[in-house]
């Protein structure tokens, strides 16, 4: 069973449609038995870290997600929630770093674009996968993916792909069974579909 975790503030249906376009069945759920019984999970996110973590807490999902031992893919904010902390608060930065799930090391912080580059980092940018990781099977280095975010996870030991916008940042991360992509594979054309397929076939 493939499960999209119902985080409340996310645009869940676009991820659902992307999985269905590949011919898979998928359910959106926040129920314990679905989440712990799933073979593959997606943790999508649109919103702010503050809002998203609060939603997880209210739904009792924080400890549940940490218990997952099957492959889980966080998307955009869903990837950022895998980190230890985020400083995203909405229209302004959060007063205190927001504790996240702590499943991959690092703190999500405001990006520092070069002069003439705008925030949010919005649009199609190229990624460089660091390894021959199965998540990037049949995806050429330099492929374009769709990004829309102002905060990012710095490059670290668990970075699987980098992207550059002012500085290099983590475009994809993986630690144990927890994976995350900063871009939106469900909105990244053929390359995005390939990545979702790779994840589902891992």
């Amino acid at each position, binding site marked *: 069973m493939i499960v999209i975790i119902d985080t409340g503030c996310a645009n869940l249906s*676009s991820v659902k449609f*992307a999985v269905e376009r590949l011919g898979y069945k998928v359910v959106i759920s926040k129920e314990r038995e679905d989440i712990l019984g799933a073979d593959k999970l997606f943790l999508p996110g*649109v919103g702010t870290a503050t809002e998203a973590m609060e939603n997880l807490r209210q739904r009792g999902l924080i400890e549940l997600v940490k218990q997952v031992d099957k492959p889980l893919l966080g998307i955009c904010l869903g990837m950022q929630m895998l980190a230890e902390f985020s400083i995203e608060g909405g229209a302004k930065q959060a007063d205190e770093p927001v504790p996240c799930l702590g499943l991959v090391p690092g703190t999500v912080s405001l990006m520092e674009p070069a002069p003439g580059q705008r925030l*949010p980092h919005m*649009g*199609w940018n190229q990624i460089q996968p660091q390894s021959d990781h199965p998540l990037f099977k049949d995806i050429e280095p330099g492929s374009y993916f*769709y990004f*829309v975010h*102002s905060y990012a996870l710095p490059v670290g030991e668990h970075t699987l792909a980098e992207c550059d916008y002012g500085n290099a940042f983590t475009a994809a991360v993986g630690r144990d069974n927890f994976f995350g992509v900063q871009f939106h594979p469900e909105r990244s054309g053929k390359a995005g579909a390939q990545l979702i397929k790779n994840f589902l076939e891992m």
Partner: protein
Amino acid sequence: MLAKRIIPCLDVKDGVVVKGVKFRNHEVMGDIVPLAKRYAEEGADELVFYDITASSDARVVDKSWVSRVAEVIDIPFCVAGGIKTIDDANRTLQHGADKVSINSPALADPSLITKLADKFGVQCIVVGIDSYYCEETKQYQVKQFTGDEKRTVTTTWNTFDWVKEVQERGAGEIVLNVMNQDGVRQGYDLEQLSRVREICKVPLIASGGAGEMQHFADAFNQSDVDGALAASVFHKSIINIGELKQFLKQQEVAIRL
């Protein structure tokens, strides 16, 4: 490198795609889903759907078409029109839209921008601005309720002041539509775009006036906009998106092919 975006805009009215000249005389261009799919296949980087009747008619607009688009489209899309509350935005995003764009409701209640940014993140809050250059006063004015000519009003906002204001309130992107140029295909208003660019720290999308491929190159190379939006040239097949992107690549514009 971050690519410049080519963005077909589909004006939606009563569930079909329409296009008018200078915001008037709307003619039906076709069904939403096949047109959206065609643009995605031709290489569009993003789509914008403006439900042009929504803000003017003060009604709850049927957004079920958003789901139909989200089902078949694998590129991002933004929905504008009739989004006046957090609930409206939430429903639209739940249907599968990636971003929501607000225009008239932001003018009526500028705090809406901040409320939406706090709830959904600045990255999915786009503010559309309909700017009109008044020859008499030599002023750039912001217009409201442009979906219905009878209700269109000139606000007290000067375009540049409003551009600054919406950024302070949490806009994640600005679509600047120059009404003088809309639908007449004489080129984007480069002077206005360049002046807005100087004060716009978030992505800026040019809208209104594209008629030939060079107009897109000019907007990117001279006014440094992040994306260029157009409607009639794509709907009427005057410009093919694939050919446009090849042309822009040759003009050394960063483009996703």
